[in-house]
């Protein structure tokens, strides 16, 4: 076989392998929609938003299929987690990048990596056994929006730290020298020069972290209490979309199961929306900057 023929053969073969990752995305959408179709035809799309709560019954007319409370819970837990994690993550990254040297810096990097790699089920276990009893002192049952948000925050801090540090690292290294040459203090340099210039990378980290928190399952199932209700305070127990799927898929069938698939599809869409919205926002921001 001639060399160029070998090359085009290899290219075709590898191209097929590569197309698989594109194909999987379509497969995911296709299979989620296919499984949701039963619920859409038997229950109807509007009831997922008009029904007051989630209480599936075999008798579809008696059951309640409202997802609103769980959507609100998902957003509430994830957003609160981001609010807790963002300052800690940003400050830690600032410390790592601007103030810390030598062994402690390597140590901090290592800790960040290890926390990033901790299984969410282990964090959930910790939350369940350590954190929830502490929150129980504030108000029963302890399993709550706040518990979920705190554990999720621990989970997403590494994401924020890593992306913030790399955003600062990507800045032109001459910037520091120029600023020093102009006699600009370190604090002013960090707050008024480095951070605005790195804002794109830093916000990307926040968006990634938010998407990760929204899609997380194990932590919220273990520490949020799984009560289907509209949260009125941070100490209320709630059930999120992901938690609902994890709890009910085990025994659901028929249109109930199909409804779970539909909620999974909605979850996927909303996580991807956060992603795309974040990207678009960053793009326009970048254009303005130019």
């Amino acid at each position, binding site marked *: 076989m001639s060399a160029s023929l070998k090359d085009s053969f*290899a290219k075709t073969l590898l191209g097929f392998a*590569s197309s698989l*990752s*594109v194909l999987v995305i379509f497969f995911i959408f296709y299979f*989620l929609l296919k499984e949701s179709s039963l619920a859409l035809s038997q229950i109807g799309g509007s009831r997922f938003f008009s029904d007051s709560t989630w209480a599936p019954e075999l008798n579809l007319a008696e059951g309640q299929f409202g997802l609103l409370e769980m959507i609100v819970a998902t957003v509430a837990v994830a957003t609160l987690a981001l609010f807790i994690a963002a300052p800690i993550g940003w400050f830690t990254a600032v410390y790592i990048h601007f103030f810390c040297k030598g062994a402690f810096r390597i140590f901090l990097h290592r800790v960040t990596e290890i926390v990033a790699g901790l299984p969410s089920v282990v964090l959930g276990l910790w939350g369940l056994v350590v954190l929830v009893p502490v929150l129980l002192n504030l108000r029963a049952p302890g399993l709550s929006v706040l518990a979920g948000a705190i554990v999720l925050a*621990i989970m997403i801090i590494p994401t924020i730290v890593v992306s913030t540090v790399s955003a600062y690292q990507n800045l032109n290294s001459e910037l520091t020298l120029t600023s020093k040459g102009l006699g600009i203090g370190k604090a002013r340099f960090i707050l008024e020069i480095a951070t605005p210039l790195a804002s794109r990378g830093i916000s990307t980290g926040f968006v990634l972290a938010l998407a990760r928190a929204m899609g997380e399952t194990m932590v919220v199932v273990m520490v949020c209490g799984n009560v289907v209700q509209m949260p009125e305070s941070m100490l209320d127990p709630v059930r999120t979309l992901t938690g609902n799927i994890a709890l009910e*898929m085990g025994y659901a069938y028929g249109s109930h199961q199909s409804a779970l698939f539909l909620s999974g599809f909605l979850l996927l869409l909303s996580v991807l929306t956060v992603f795309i919205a974040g990207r678009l926002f960053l793009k326009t921001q970048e254009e303005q900057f130019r």
Partner: protein
Amino acid sequence: MSFRSENILKGLSFISALFFCGIFFLILSTLIYQSGALSFEFLTTVSSEAGRAGGILEVINSSFLILAICLGVSVPLSIATAVFLAVFSEKNPLVHNVISTALDTLAATPSIVFGLFGYSFFVIYLGFGFSILAGGLTLAFMVLPFLIRIFEEGISENYRQFKLAGASLGLSRTAQVRRIILPLSTNTISAGLVLGIGRALSETAALLFTSGYLLRMPESVMDSGRSMSVHIFDLAMNVPGGNQNAYRTAVVLVIALIVINLTSTFLTRRVLGAKT
């Protein structure tokens, strides 16, 4: 004034870093403290009383099988994709955009959605049932985007460095990949492998309804099998009095992951060291 604000910023950021480390050690020490005495027998005996007593031998077995299937499928696929992107279609922005978008989407997809997909496609549609095979394949597609990104970075760096020399000697792209690029990318590949192992071992949600809960020694990949992470979840949530063994399993899992993480940083450092 400038010095004062610098000190405030430095102080605040130091407290944050310390707080973050503190939480990490709090988690670690709780795990170790709560698990009580952890003996080697825990790894070598099977469980009893729904996991409350005994060890986790069958769980470790299932985890390994799931991991093997996951990596056996995802590693060759992602190397192929990475080579395709870095070497064979480096000039084609359309191919890069399409695959890149697909990979970003895959990477952003929540693991529970992968679980739903795996259930619908592997368990039901392909008829694998709740099985280690279905769980491993689901995980394979989940880790795919991360592996491809790592491999592509290493492979395109090597290709960029040696493509002119290779091409000027009349080496075809296939020859360059086989004889130069892949042999030079072994470190990248092992780093990716380690990342894949870490991700696959940590995953729970995608396995709940693909490889299932069954606490039994798996006889084949068509059997349902419980991974370590699922075991922790089940003991903590569904088995009263299962907390201690949940903690013990968590300690085993975390130690394994930390060892893997250290191996990976060691390998990455070697990769970076070789380049400079």
